[in-house]
């Protein structure tokens, strides 16, 4: 590993761009995303379907289909240039330095291997221990994620467990090799509400205990508030606003964030109509040259259509990409 200055962030992504090409069409899924993440920090990435949040995560773990996608920009994690990794180094990085939990725990376990085998497989791969030690570690992790009668569950197949249980097992698998960074791709979306809360609390607890950084992708504002220290709002493959949870939720500066927050059901809005954002997100195969949100924005002006607005810092690391802020400044 390369030496790393103590004040260097754990994760540093700059100008990340992901394009998918399909029969003559190029889809710009991620358009120049940049962010830093400190050790132990939890970043909530908020956005709707197709905003590029999952693709960003997958690009960071290098698990996008290689022949159909092109990833440019730089991703540095724990001092390593992720896009330059290959072979055994890349395999060590995946699951060792950074691991991921997926949206659908049923679909992300191999159905013909037991939970214990699948956790042990990862442990053996990264910790270089024998089968017995790996199994012991798997048991320890199942206990750690509060799976009842963990010893018995070790030999259970994924289809023999409930959704919440499977997601706990997925977390056990992801954390078994003590990663520095956890990527969580909507890990609670497929679960019912009561189980969601339990999983969120568990994740929060384990994050503190392991001291790891987490990037938590969700479309649910409430979930993002619950788990994150900082929020990044994505729209059409760009981060349009970022800042601490308190700042972004209390004083959203980007019209999209404002629209997103006002279209979320909250207690005080009972009986009122929810204010929805008109229109729909842009076609990622034909991105407008200017602000991608402009066609749906009630504050839009000519300037918005000309070029993508730069990020404006409104204080305390709270940034948004909107021309209105530049005018105000």
């Amino acid at each position: 590993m390369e030496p790393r200055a103590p004040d260097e962030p754990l994760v540093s992504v700059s100008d990340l761009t992901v394009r998918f090409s399909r029969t003559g069409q190029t889809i710009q899924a991620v358009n120049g995303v940049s962010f830093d993440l400190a050790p132990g920090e939890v970043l909530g990435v908020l956005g709707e379907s197709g905003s590029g949040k999952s693709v960003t995560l997958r690009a960071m773990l290098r698990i996008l289909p290689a022949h159909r996608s092109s990833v440019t920009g730089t991703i540095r994690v724990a001092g390593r240039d992720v896009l330059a990794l290959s072979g055994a180094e890349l395999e060590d990085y995946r699951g060792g330095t950074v691991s991921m939990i997926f949206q659908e725990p049923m679909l992300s376990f191999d159905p013909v291997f037991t939970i214990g085998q699948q956790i042990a497989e990862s442990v053996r791969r990264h910790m270089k221990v024998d089968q017995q030690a790996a199994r012991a570690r798997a048991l320890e992790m199942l206990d750690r994620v509060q799976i009842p009668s963990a010893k018995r569950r070790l030999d259970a197949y994924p289809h023999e467990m409930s959704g919440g249980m499977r997601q706990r097992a997925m977390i056990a698998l992801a954390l078994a090799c003590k990663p520095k960074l956890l990527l969580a791709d909507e890990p609670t979306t497929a679960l019912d509400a009561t189980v969601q809360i339990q999983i969120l609390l568990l994740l929060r607890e384990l994050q503190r205990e392991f001291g790891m950084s987490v990037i938590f992708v969700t479309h649910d504002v409430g979930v993002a508030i619950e788990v994150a220290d900082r929020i990044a709002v994505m729209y059409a493959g760009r981060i349009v606003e970022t800042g601490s949870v308190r700042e972004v939720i209390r004083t959203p500066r980007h019209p999209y964030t404002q629209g997103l927050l006002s279209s979320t059901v909250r207690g005080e809005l009972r009986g009122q109509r929810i204010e929805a954002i008109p229109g729909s997100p842009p076609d990622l195969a034909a991105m407008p040259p200017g602000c991608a949100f402009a066609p749906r924005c009630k504050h839009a002006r000519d300037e918005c259509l000309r070029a993508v607005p730069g990020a404006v810092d409104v204080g305390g690391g709270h940034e948004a990409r909107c021309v209105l802020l530049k005018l105000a400044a």
Partner: protein
Amino acid sequence: MLLYLVRRLLYVIPIGLAVSAICFSLVFLAPGDPLSAVLPADASLELIEKLKADYGFDRPIPVQFGKWVARAVQGDLGISIATGRPVNSELARAISNTFVLAFFACSFGFTLGLVLGFIAGYWNGTWLDKVVTSLAVAGVSVPHYWLGMVLVIIFSVFFNWLPATGMGAGGSSEWAWDWEHLQFVILPAVTLSVIPTAIITRTVRALVADILSREFVTALIAKGLSDRGVFWHVVKNAAPTALAVMGIQLGYLLGGSILVETVFAWPGTGFLLSVAIFQRDLPLLQGTILFLALFFVFLNLLVDMVQTLLDPRIRRT
């Protein structure tokens, strides 16, 4: 599992009875008299009646069936009318010959089918996949008696590399593991293996492509497994279905192919069946069909067992 095994074995009894009733009665639907083939044209009426009584053909069909089943259960399938030898010994020799042929056809076809299927599935959508898929379509479409004859024309007639028919020099039907005998098996085995190869290729290709597109494969890569590590997962996921298909193909191959064995004059069960049909040799015909049908039932049972062992989602009590 044990209970399931016992229950499945018990199922074999009614299936076997039904199968034997069908194959016993079907041959009576066909026109022609079994005895006319062995009797001279000018045989006297008494002689015909005496022979009929000897073979029991004068009894009502249900009685004949009952007697046949009673003896079949004890392992006696009667006497071949055409040769006068017990059906059992005729059948035993034919089965061992067909097994030899099927062994080579399977070894060749299954290996090739699995390899091609994995290649096409892994490189799904590329030119490699397209070539393999076209070959597989051609493989299932080509009539194998025609292919057999073409191979004979090329390798026996034109190049004179391999013998055209039989399974040994001088019409011998004794098998031995040497080149003298091996050269006889090559053409029929290759011919016979074409369809199973193509079917297995297509099945495995579809399986592998489907498995590779699933989320859990991404999750396996995400936890740092190498390509070889992922491959093992793909194999274990594909195995139950691939095995089931191979089991059925094995059943077809072991049943012997009437057409291929006839084209190559290979003295196996298929050849035996065609001889029995043309000579109206009822005991031989019934015995052979019964054996093949029961064998198929047994093979399906075996495939089910192996599948249950491999795939934990198939839980049987």
